[in-house]
């Protein structure tokens, strides 16, 4: 069954899109991550124009994070003050990011830059996750007794960043720390959200826990809160500046990912944390290699169509 995507301007098999959404949803249910960083590259692989893939993913993330954010808000897990500071950065970053997308598309190098950023980011996250989970597995088997489960050294970073000026009191997180780092990380993740079509939870949550020093549950709740609004801002601006938001695509992906997530969460209960992490690391690293090869192997088409004047595809 084919479905015509109005903004992507193409006809595509509905089950393929639902299937990809479902698969990413399954993985995100399993690993407890958003999965935007898997979704955008997969959309590109099935022929969705990169800019449409990124913008529509932002739209989908906005939907996928909404119910989680709402639930955490009701449970009192959202640090609104911290979320507000991060969000201010996120709005700024998202706005810069969307303009970057516009400039890069006009230059014909959006896809290139996007893939470079993906390779760096996924390469780092994937390797770190792989090494960390491997160590944990070895430690749990008594092969590497020197390594503790929780990585040491991070609180130092939290103390260092807390010394910066612009100190604020964050009641929900029980912190008295500088607003500079949360704002900066918000800005960086905001730029990435626009450029890559990701929520950025896999960077934001560790940064909140290990660098800002927030309690885990408050970090997750606050991250979801800022993701909804950051991705809403990115969606809005992509629609306005680049005209690349395909709402139909976003809704189909949402349907697929929601169903997939239910199965993923159920399946995840049967696996150990480090097994799950090493599996995710392998998936992330495989994707990194694929994207890296796209950058260095001779492309089959040396000439390509730049986006039409006035947006569109």
């Amino acid at each position: 069954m084919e479905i015509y995507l109005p903004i992507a301007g193409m006809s595509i098999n509905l089950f393929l899109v639902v299937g990809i959404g479902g698969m990413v949803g399954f993985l995100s249910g399993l690993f407890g991550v958003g999965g935007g960083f898997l979704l955008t590259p997969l959309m590109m692989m099935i022929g969705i124009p990169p800019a449409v893939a990124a913008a529509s993913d932002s739209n989908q993330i906005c939907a996928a994070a909404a119910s989680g954010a709402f639930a955490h808000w009701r449970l009192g897990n959202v640090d609104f003050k911290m979320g507000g500071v991060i969000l201010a950065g996120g709005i700024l970053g998202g706005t810069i990011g969307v303009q970057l997308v516009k400039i890069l598309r006009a230059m014909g190098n959006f896809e290139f830059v996007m893939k470079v950023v993906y390779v760096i980011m996924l390469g780092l996250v994937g390797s770190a996750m792989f090494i960390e989970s491997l160590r944990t597995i070895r430690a749990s088997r008594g092969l590497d007794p020197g390594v503790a489960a929780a990585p040491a050294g991070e609180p130092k970073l939290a103390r260092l960043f807390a010394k910066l000026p612009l100190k604020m009191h964050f009641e929900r997180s029980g912190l008295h720390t500088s607003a500079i780092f949360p704002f900066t990380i918000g800005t960086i993740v905001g730029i990435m959200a626009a450029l890559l079509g990701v929520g950025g939870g896999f960077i934001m949550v560790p940064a909140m826990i290990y660098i800002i020093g927030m309690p885990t549950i408050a970090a997750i709740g606050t991250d979801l809160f800022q993701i909804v609004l950051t991705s809403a801002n990115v969606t809005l601006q992509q629609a306005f500046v680049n005209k690349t938001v395909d709402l139909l695509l976003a809704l189909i992906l949402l349907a697929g990912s929601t169903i997939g997530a239910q199965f993923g969460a159920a399946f995840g209960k049967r696996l150990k944390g480090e097994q799950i992490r090493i599996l995710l690391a392998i998936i992330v690293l495989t994707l990194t290699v694929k994207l890296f090869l796209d950058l260095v192997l001779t492309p089959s088409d040396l000439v390509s169509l730049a986006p039409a004047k006035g947006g569109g595809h």
Partner: protein
Amino acid sequence: MRRGAILLLATALVMAGGAVTLAAISPEVKQKVLTAASKNLIEIGVSYRGDQIHFFGVNPVPGTDLVIKLTAEKDEDIKLSVKGRVGPFWMTVKQYDVTGTPFMYKIHTGKPLEQIVSKETAQELELGYEAIRHKMKMVLARGEAAPDDADKVFKGMIKIKEEANLYNIVEDPKRLEVAEGKLFKHYFRFPPAATEGRYQVESFCFDKGQLVGYGKDIIEIKKVGLEHWFTYTSQEHPVFFGIFAVVVAVAAGLGVGIIFGKGGHH
């Protein structure tokens, strides 16, 4: 007097000759090729996956060569990026603004075009890729030009179009069936990439390379219903569309959360 008459006759002959050459570039004055299309309107709906239109026609000069051309009514302005090596990476190193090429271009004939018309006529009536190449204009927008760019860009453009099934040339009697040299039938496939707009299907009859018959059909493609609304709103009212996309997404996300009774999958 007699000299005057000869002069007059000569002038008339020259004029007549001129009229013949002129007629070659204004096909409308030729004998009409009567055609009928199975439909003249293609509607892009949610389940659109491209469409096919059948054409039937009568050749006014039986036994002559038929050439059918499908083009978009307006030529397009496009920008083409050319990739090159930068260190170990492949990225866009230059761009060309290209004008004068049709968005869609398809030709059906029963035998190779060059056996039907001369190069000049082909160019005049824009028949064949060579004619498009002749008409295409490219201006360097960014980067450094190289001597083989014109060739590279043209071939790259044709490849992109052919892969999207927006361009093709089929020189095959099976594709353009002619019964008793007179009645002909064929079909054009409109791929999903064929966007909204007006397209023309022109039927030419050539007798030993001379244009003797001509006919034209207009096909319109338009988006309808939800597809029309999405496209129109996103292009004309982007701020509203952005807000709408966010509101719908958040509502759908919350709705899904309620259905599954959990806090989403984050």
